[in-house]
């Protein structure tokens, strides 16, 4: 049997330059897949959460079931969630996205609703007094004032989606999770560390990006009196 090559891969070092060069394409593909799954899930989650939160705000009877159902969804363990959705979606990226959308709903609905509820009744009445209709009131008064709380929810939902994507590895669509999973099986230190670090970098970058967006969207919150 031939002797093993003497490099940091064979020595199984935590930090390994050869790992980065030999797996550059794989790391790139995994990162792109990770970003896509996260972004698509959070965006679809947002599109669904907004009407749910509005319904819960304006129809008092809707609040309890909406919050109850989305909270129960959040308590389903991720492995079970993907297994339950498997017969519906098969082995596909859609399966992972659907699971992540359901998870994001709790955080998004609760925070958007909290934002909407924080709009003072006096403000709404003042707007109505100025002749604002319900739609104009919503778009120009309520939603902007709800933004800080809603954005906080969006940031948490995004960061948790970045980490939950990795569970998609059980069906082969886990972005960097695929690498972490296969690395764990063979005690491949460089692979586990590199993929984990990239996950953290994505999460922090996404959070900062959203924080910047929030500041741009809500200039009044920074204005000093």
């Amino acid at each position: 049997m031939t002797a093993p090559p003497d490099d940091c891969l064979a020595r199984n070092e935590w930090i390994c330059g050869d790992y980065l060069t030999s797996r550059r394409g794989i790391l790139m593909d995994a990162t792109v897949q990770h970003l896509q799954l996260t972004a698509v899930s959070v965006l679809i989650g947002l599109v669904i959460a907004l009407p749910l939160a509005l319904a819960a705000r304006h129809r008092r009877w809707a609040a309890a079931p909406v919050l109850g159902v989305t909270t129960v969804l959040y308590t389903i363990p991720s492995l079970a969630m993907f297994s339950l959705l498997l017969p519906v979606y098969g082995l596909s990226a859609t399966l992972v996205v659907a699971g992540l959308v359901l998870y994001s709903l709790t955080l998004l609905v609760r925070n958007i609703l909290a934002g909407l509820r924080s709009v003072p009744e006096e403000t709404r009445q003042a707007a109505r007094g100025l002749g604002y209709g319900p739609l104009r009131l919503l778009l120009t008064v309520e939603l902007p004032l709800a933004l800080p709380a809603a954005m906080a929810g969006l940031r948490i939902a995004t960061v948790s989606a970045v980490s939950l994507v990795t569970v998609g590895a059980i069906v082969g669509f886990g972005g960097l999770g695929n690498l972490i999973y296969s690395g764990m099986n063979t005690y491949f230190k460089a692979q586990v560390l590199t993929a984990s670090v990239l996950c953290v970098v994505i999460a922090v970058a996404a959070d900062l990006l959203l924080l910047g967006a929030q500041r741009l969207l809500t200039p009044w919150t920074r204005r000093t009196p």
Partner: protein
Amino acid sequence: MTSRHPGVRALPALLLLLVTACTTGPSLENQGDVTAPPGDSKHLTIGSAGFTESDLLAQMYALLLEQAGYSTRILSVTNREIYEPALESGQIDVVPEYAATFADWLKTKADGADADPVGSPDLGTTMKALRALAAPRGLTVLPPGRAVDQNAFAVAAAYAAKHRLETLSDLGRSGLPVRLAAGDECVKRPYCEPGLKKVYGIDITAVDPRGVGTTQAKQAVQNGQDQMVLTTTTDATLDDFGLVLLADDRHLQNADYLVPVVNRARAGSGGVRDALGKLNTVLTTADLARMNEQVDSWRRLPEDVARTYLENKGLVPKG
């Protein structure tokens, strides 16, 4: 508050519809696959069960199929519970399997957890049982090759030399007390503790639950805590721990030959059979062990290891 908008009541249902409407059915890129003529789709998805040997075989299958004019992609999933239904439905077309293990798994799936195992140490019997179980599910089991990944038992080389052990029968005759490092299911499985006692008359004093072929299990035998370890025939790291395999001379182990299992409607053609059949006369258990070592111990890419092997064997052109 009264409900002025009855539609709101239907909101949850509508949302569910929205989520599913956008996402069910074949995506555009897969539609060609679904409508392709049955039996010989030109675009094949190869499933890997996510561990090294499965990855290597999936890569070799992909290279051989590409050589035969198919386009392929590899999908790595974690376990049989997930990939087997996908194989039946045609989301996955080809999977590397182990004849006896897969036969037992299908039997359990058909008849429940208490079903009697159908895998046997005889390859012919196992293949017959496997094909009978696979056919009703739309699966075709292609012919097995030479490589076999069976359970195997290893002892320390010094221990074997001292007591002159080459086979499990030798160990049984020696009457030595043996503490066995294995998975905790070993106490029940016929190929493990019960079989070692009954077929070989080995005095198993205890089963040390350290997993099948794990580093800890091998270390336990290396440092004398345990005398024997359960591993597999494609384990190439035994030398590193100073261990040697004892031959299964009375054929206790099932015939876990490597077989490609395909979805008949999509990959049941002669083209696929011929392409994958090229591996049968070439790939040996020792080859597989060496490739496992290159991936597990040297951390080379399964894709590169598989390609190099096939190139050296002249099955794909060097490029």
